[in-house]
């Protein structure tokens, strides 16, 4: 049997050992078994401890991507979904945590210029409360994980619908 090529790259940012920074990893770990095999066949999961320009540049033409990260600038546990261009425009107020070498607007801006456009896709973020090395995830972010999983599922569904269209 030949598997369909993945068409959505899920870029899962953060570190599990830095408190709420690990929320995206936890969400995806719980989410994947709940998806149907047909949906999972469309996904390629990539761990990005920190989102690099190349992570976006390397998304092939014809594929989409969803960037998943913990953010500051919204209430802890709150979940946001937006397009990648919108994220770049709002980087001063909603800041993904997993972008160390360059701020997220520059990561996306450089990728857009080099790639000739951002890939279709979305950013899904959850507000973090603490990020200390060696700390557990906060209660409020643990409580927000189901909403984060639901938002990722919605983003995947939206891209798959788009693909069919």
């Amino acid at each position, binding site marked *: 049997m030949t598997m369909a090529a993945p068409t959505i790259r899920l870029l899962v940012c953060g570190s599990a050992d830095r408190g709420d920074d690990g929320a995206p990893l936890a969400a995806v770990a719980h989410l994947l078994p709940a998806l149907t095999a047909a949906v999972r066949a469309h996904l390629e999961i990539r761990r990005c401890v*920190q989102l*690099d320009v*190349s992570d976006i540049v390397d998304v092939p033409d014809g594929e989409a991507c969803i960037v998943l990260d913990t953010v500051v600038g919204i209430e802890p546990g709150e979940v946001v979904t937006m397009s990648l261009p919108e994220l770049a425009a709002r980087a001063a107020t909603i800041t993904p945590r997993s972008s*160390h*070498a*360059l701020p997220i607007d520059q990561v996306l801006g*450089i990728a857009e*210029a080099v790639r000739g456009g951002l890939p279709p896709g979305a950013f899904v973020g959850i507000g973090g409360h603490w990020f200390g*090395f060696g700390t557990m995830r906060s209660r409020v972010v643990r409580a927000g994980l189901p909403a984060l999983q639901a938002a990722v599922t919605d983003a995947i569904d939206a891209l798959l619908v788009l693909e069919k269209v």
Partner: protein
Amino acid sequence: MPGTDLRFQVQNISRVEGEGSLHLLVRDGAVAEARLQIFEAPRYFEALVAGRTPNEVLDIVARICGICPVAYQMSAVHAFEDLFEVEVEPATRALRRLLYCGEWIESHALHVYLLHAPDFLGYPSAVELARDHRDLVADGLRLKKAGNRIVATLGGRAIHPVSVRVGGWSKAPRRADLLALRPELEEALSLARSTVRIVAGLEGPAFEREPRLVALHHPGEYPMNAGRIASNDGLALPPQAWDQAFHEVQVPWSNALQSRDSDGLPYLLGPAARIVLDHEQLHPLAREALDETGALESIRRNPYRSIVARAIELVHATAEALDIIDAYLPPDAPAVPWQSRPGTAAWATEAPRGLLFHRYEVGDDGLVAAATIVPPTAQNQAAIEADIATFAPSVLGLPIDAATHALEQLIRSYDPCISCATHFLDLSIHHEATELVS
């Protein structure tokens, strides 16, 4: 105007790693005060490693920086192995140089193409640069990726690698794993040589000074993990003895400790220092590239030429990485056995930004009791401030935006990593109440 103070405040220095600002006080036309204010919060890593085993420390200190985690692992592992008298296999020694090559490539490519080049080419950031020079930035990204691939192959992941262990590795790579890196590195070497030609032709301000330069020096190899601490005025100390010649000082305007030499003066670390002190140990291809630029003297005197130094080191690191891969035979075992012993473990290695010193007190229980970590950016702060004070008068007549840009550009020449510099813990407790009672 006589008798007036003029204050420059660059609130957030852009295109550096971390958060800092610059405060400049000009009195009667002369710079009275130049302060690089590092306000990124302290990160307490020296306290985090207390009570940990040496191997746990290696994984913890890697988390200090997402750009130069290998440097932290290398200084720590060499310190412990020196104390425990561990002799690693030659293959392990070569692999550690290869890992460091990977880090130098990714860090230098990031700085040359995405942080520093926009200054020389007249762009506010790499985004605008990429819009006009897409292929140039794409080349830089490919170079960076080649470095990341080395770190991922040896370290298990590109950021915060996890395979370095006292005595060797948790898992040594197969020869095939390394050979798979070859095509990408061959392209990277070609890109690195092009990078030298490009950046050697970039025009920067004609600012010159005579810094005291400090770097490791090894007679048989370009310095990474071994060598004596050397300077351009004759210093020669073993890598355990950093604190015989240098010391940390706290200043009220910075969350990072500064460093001074024994005369209380600043000194400069990094690629320019290495190139000046160690150019004879460069890989032949890098030496050839340096000779073609004729830039050795300008690298020593002009901080803006550090971009050339980094490009030369890109050539060195990619060329040496290929040599190591070609000669690689896996070690008999990933790690040699070792036995802990109490005492002081200390060592210095060459991070992309310069000499990184670690010292650990290991107790009878085999756990770390205390740690001192002195990163290169913290050591360079005083030299940066001194250079700013010297350079600033030349831009005081410019409009404020232009002066601010020129000062930021100077700071970026040192590639400061502020996140690294604020790892320290400085704890002071006053037992005033107790004293009153007693």
